[in-house]
């Protein structure tokens, strides 16, 4: 944001012209023109983010059902009732497991991927293009591949393990609560590694080569060089990528929806899928409350992220 200050207002450079019309004068005044430029985008954001947010809070405080005009204001009753709901309790726990079971792995593997791709080798650009694909392709679609890889009958993973004599019979990947959440984590890690990889790779390209070489000449080993030279440069972008990843994992939907729909027996729901399922029961007040339970956590993460992004700027 600091660059804003460097941008000098243009009016000082311009010799006033007596003959100019309103429109030309209007354009001179940066603040009026700025707000005019912001207006169309802000209108969309207000109509489809700010308004639904406020409306969502209102719905969550009522006993509204889809298709019924009558609704009563019941204050925090929906929120209170959810605290006693065993599925909701499991949802909160799953979301936590889903975050803790994926983000550290995505970070570690992504860092590894970035360190690999930062080396010079033949066809490195081609590899880079391919290795980003899991993050580019629609998640709903790549999840279909995992749906088959984790299928009780068709899974090639079961086939290999059976062939090697490690397991007898097919593995019930998605039908068992524990297996299901592990499977979800694996698919989530797969999708998220390239994001970390590419973000950290961009940071690595700012690491000065000569500093690394100087440290090597001074006898620093690879780990010492990484901590002293590389890490300070990539620290900020790594933190930013991690915060983004936590937010996205926390608020995920597609992967769980495609692979388990929250099942078996509601054991793998996260906020998004449980809210969607509740909407399906037309209990829109409760559904809105489930979604809004995410808000405090999201707000905290967003504020931290904003501070890092600004420092980076």
């Amino acid at each position, binding site marked *: *944001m600091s660059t804003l*200050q460097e*941008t*000098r207002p243009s009016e000082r450079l311009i*010799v006033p012209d007596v003959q100019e019309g309103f429109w030309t004068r209007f*354009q001179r005044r940066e*603040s009026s*023109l*700025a707000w005019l*430029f*912001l207006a169309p*985008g*802000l209108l*969309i*954001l207000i109509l489809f*983010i700010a308004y*639904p947010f406020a*409306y*969502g809070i209102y719905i969550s405080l009522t006993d509204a059902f889809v298709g019924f005009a009558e609704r009563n204001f019941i204050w925090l009753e929906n929120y209170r009732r959810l605290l006693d709901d065993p599925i909701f309790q499991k949802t909160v726990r799953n979301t936590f497991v889903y975050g803790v079971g994926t983000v550290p792995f995505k970070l570690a593997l992504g860092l590894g*991927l970035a360190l*690999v791709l930062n*080396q010079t080798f033949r066809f490195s*650009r081609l590899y*880079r293009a*391919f*290795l980003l694909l*899991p993050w*580019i*392709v*629609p*998640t709903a*679609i*790549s*999840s*279909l*591949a*995992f749906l088959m*890889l984790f299928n009780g009958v068709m899974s*090639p993973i079961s*086939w290999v393990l059976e062939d090697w004599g490690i397991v007898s019979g097919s593995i019930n990947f998605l039908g068992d609560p524990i297996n299901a959440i592990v499977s979800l984590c694996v698919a989530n890690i797969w999708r998220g*590694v390239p994001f970390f990889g*590419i*973000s950290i790779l*961009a940071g690595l390209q700012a690491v000065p080569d000569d500093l690394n070489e100087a440290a090597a000449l001074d006898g620093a080993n690879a780990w010492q060089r990484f901590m002293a030279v590389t890490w300070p440069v990539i620290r*900020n*972008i790594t933190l930013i990528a991690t915060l983004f990843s936590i937010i996205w994992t*926390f*608020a995920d939907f597609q992967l769980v*929806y495609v692979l388990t729909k929250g099942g078996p027996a509601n054991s793998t729901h996260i906020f*998004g899928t449980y809210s969607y399922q509740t*909407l399906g029961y037309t209990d829109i007040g409760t559904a809105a409350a489930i*979604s*809004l339970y*995410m808000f405090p956590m999201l707000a905290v*993460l967003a504020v931290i*992220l*904003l501070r890092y*992004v600004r420092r*980076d*700027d």
Partner: protein
Amino acid sequence: MAMVGSNVRRSRWLSLYLPLTFFMVFLMFPFYWMLIVSLKPNTDLLNMDLNPFLLYSITLDHYSYLFTDTAFMRYTLNTFVVTVGSTLLALSASIFIGYALGRFRFRGGTLMGALIFLCYLVPPTLLFIPLSQIVADFGLYNTYWSLIFTYPTFLIPFASWLLMGYFRTIAIDLEHAALVDGATRLQAMRHIVLPLAMPGILSAGIFCFTLGWNEFLYALVFMSSGDMKTVPVGVVTDLIRADVYFWGSLMAAGILGSVPVAVAYSFFVDNYISGMTAGATKG
């Protein structure tokens, strides 16, 4: 010297080829699997004596089934309309926002930049419930407009921050020269800044396209009746059946549904990578 050479080669194996192979196998395997299943005849697929990782014969039946017996073409059309429409809307709004935030100094500018950034962090799962009501109230339910208007809520913040950064890299002197020569702000913007910003605008457009193509939850809730589904939603809700004969066509749909974004991004890989990290750090 020979010793040093072999050490270097061994360390290169450890630091490069081994992990690279691991990442290629781990990250590419699901795509490989989708591709071979989509080309495999059902008899081979269900024959448990064959190695499932290999192709013994090739068929295009699963692909032709998609075009003749499913609404896949219609889903593709729907997705194109929605994605292109929301991208154009978001891009035009974002060019102005990015320019205003990147160039003008005005009261509330910094705050607006921060607020727009925060909008990017609002996940669809937080707002889809009230939005579904609002979309219905506006009479947009199950129309293209439901997504053309709602996708910009995450496209505008992203594209605005990207373009804001891009506009700042363009020397302001050029514009000042034009202003001194009597051009208005808008003329200077149109004739000087926009042509120079074209690469940035293009990569912002590509991002918007891929983000729009990939969106799932809003499409599932606002536009999933009849033949109005998008590709991700249609494939997930319509092609999964109760028997075991759907895998081939499902994987074929997965391959075809990924092609537009894969192509869009392959043309701009380098832009994409620099832009994504600009996005990652700036919005």
